[in-house]
């Protein structure tokens, strides 16, 4: 029998399963950091976590509340300056996976964390902005995105392209000269999406246990493509849930 769990817990567990031993991962704070630390505490103890505060190989035993949390520096293999983390480590393509979240994502996996509303100078909602994401999305070998799926977050076109997924479609990343291959997978609280190899359009390939393709379609601002081989995500194991809850309880402690 499987223990009860929330859709957010399922999302974090599914995201953690994307990381493997030896993967060098550039981690955003929030959902990505929680998932990356869950991976390190369960299936991927040798995943290498890099935070944009300049901590390379951070091994926190609790969840950092911010990217500058002292636990990251104290447990890192190396602590470098911010210019160095972007210029020496990210820009030349030394990082396998960029692990990002977003306020909005569109059908070509472009990410918006800048403004909601069409007028940049007079936004409906002013979001925090780019941070490290544009260059993480450009230069990591691949990108994993984790965010909750609703009509507000899954939109046909993002209001502002903060970080490029596949631009307007096939061939755009190559035309723009972006070295990384772009988003490999998007994990939500409803399921898992991957870009179609031909069209680059995000396609639902898995639903989490208890969700349906209809739920995912209803939470998407465009006619969501669904894979003919749609499968169901394995629910969280006892170990994944126990470790995740232990980590969540330490957040900011």
């Amino acid at each position, binding site marked *: 029998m499987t223990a009860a769990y929330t859709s957010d817990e399922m999302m974090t567990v599914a995201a953690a399963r994307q990381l493997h031993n030896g993967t060098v991962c550039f981690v955003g704070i929030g959902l990505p950091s929680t998932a990356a630390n869950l991976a390190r505490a369960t299936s991927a103890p040798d995943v290498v976590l890099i935070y944009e505060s300049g901590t390379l190989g951070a091994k926190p035993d609790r969840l950092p509340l911010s990217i500058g949390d002292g636990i990251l520096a104290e447990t890192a293999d190396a*602590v470098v300056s911010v210019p160095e983390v972007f210029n020496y480590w990210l820009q030349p393509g030394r990082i396998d996976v960029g692990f990002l979240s977003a306020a909005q994502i569109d059908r070509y996996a472009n990410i918006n964390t800048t403004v909601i509303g069409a007028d940049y100078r007079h936004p409906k909602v002013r979001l925090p902005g780019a941070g490290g994401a544009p*260059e993480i999305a450009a230069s990591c070998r691949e990108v994993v995105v984790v965010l909750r799926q609703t009509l507000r977050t899954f939109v046909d076109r993002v209001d502002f392209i903060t970080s490029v997924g596949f631009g307007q479609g096939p061939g755009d990343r190559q035309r723009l000269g972006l070295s990384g291959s772009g988003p490999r997978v998007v994990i939500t609280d409803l399921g898992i999406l991957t870009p179609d190899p031909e069209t680059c359009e995000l396609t639902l390939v898995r639903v989490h246990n208890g969700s349906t393709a209809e739920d995912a379609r209803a939470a998407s601002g465009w006619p969501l493509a669904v894979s003919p081989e749609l499968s169901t995500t394995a629910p969280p194991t006892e170990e994944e849930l126990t470790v995740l809850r232990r980590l969540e309880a330490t957040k900011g402690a």
Partner: protein
Amino acid sequence: MAEIVSLSDGIAAVVHDGDTLVMEGFTHLIPFAAGHEIIRQRRHDLTLVRMTPDLIYDQLIGMGCATKLIFSWGGNPGVGSLHRFRDAVENSWPLPLDLEEHSHAGMANRYLAGASGLPFAVLRGYVGTDLPAQTDTIRPITCPFTGEVLTAVPALSPDVTIIHAQRADRKGNVQMWGILGVQKEAVLAAKRSLITVEEIVDSLDPKPQEVVLPSFATTYIAVAPGGAHPSYAQGYSLRDNAFYTEWDAISKDRETFLRWMDENVIRRVPAA
């Protein structure tokens, strides 16, 4: 050589109305005490520069000290929105706030160029995003050797940079360690600088991953114990995570914000 002064004298000497001001700190070692002194001295028309404007910039913006912000990520780290920043951008309260928006990589390279005495920096960045259309200080540049088109961003050369560090010796050499962000580059890029420190000691025994700023590279040093609170100073204090959460409620409402600032900043002058 750096001169050791009081915090209020240091702020009065380096920060003038209309200045371009940098206060750096990447979650760690944020110069809150210095920011509060700027608010008490009622500086205005400032162009504030920082990669990660957080609570201290939220306070400066909400108190009407700034008319422009140059930045790459403006949020309450680990918590959510900066409400005073949002109110300024969305509703022009208390003043309109002009934005010059970059990415972290772009801002870091702008400091690097400033510290290096170069007019601009080159990076692979921004391509395909909507940022270049909104930010005039992001432009394409062609490599003279390969013909590859890259991105240029101008150097940041602020009038003044203020940072907080762990300690200094009596000659004014500053020592800091832990997560150091772009503090060194920001100080070297500036015309003038003020470093607040936890303490002044006779000698700076080595620390892991330390950075030392020699006395000749800075302008003023002021002792401000706990001057990074509610952020932290590794080896001296822990981050006050609860305050970052409380700030969400304090800053959401204009009146609550003004009352808090009056009680906790304007009328709370630190002992000299």
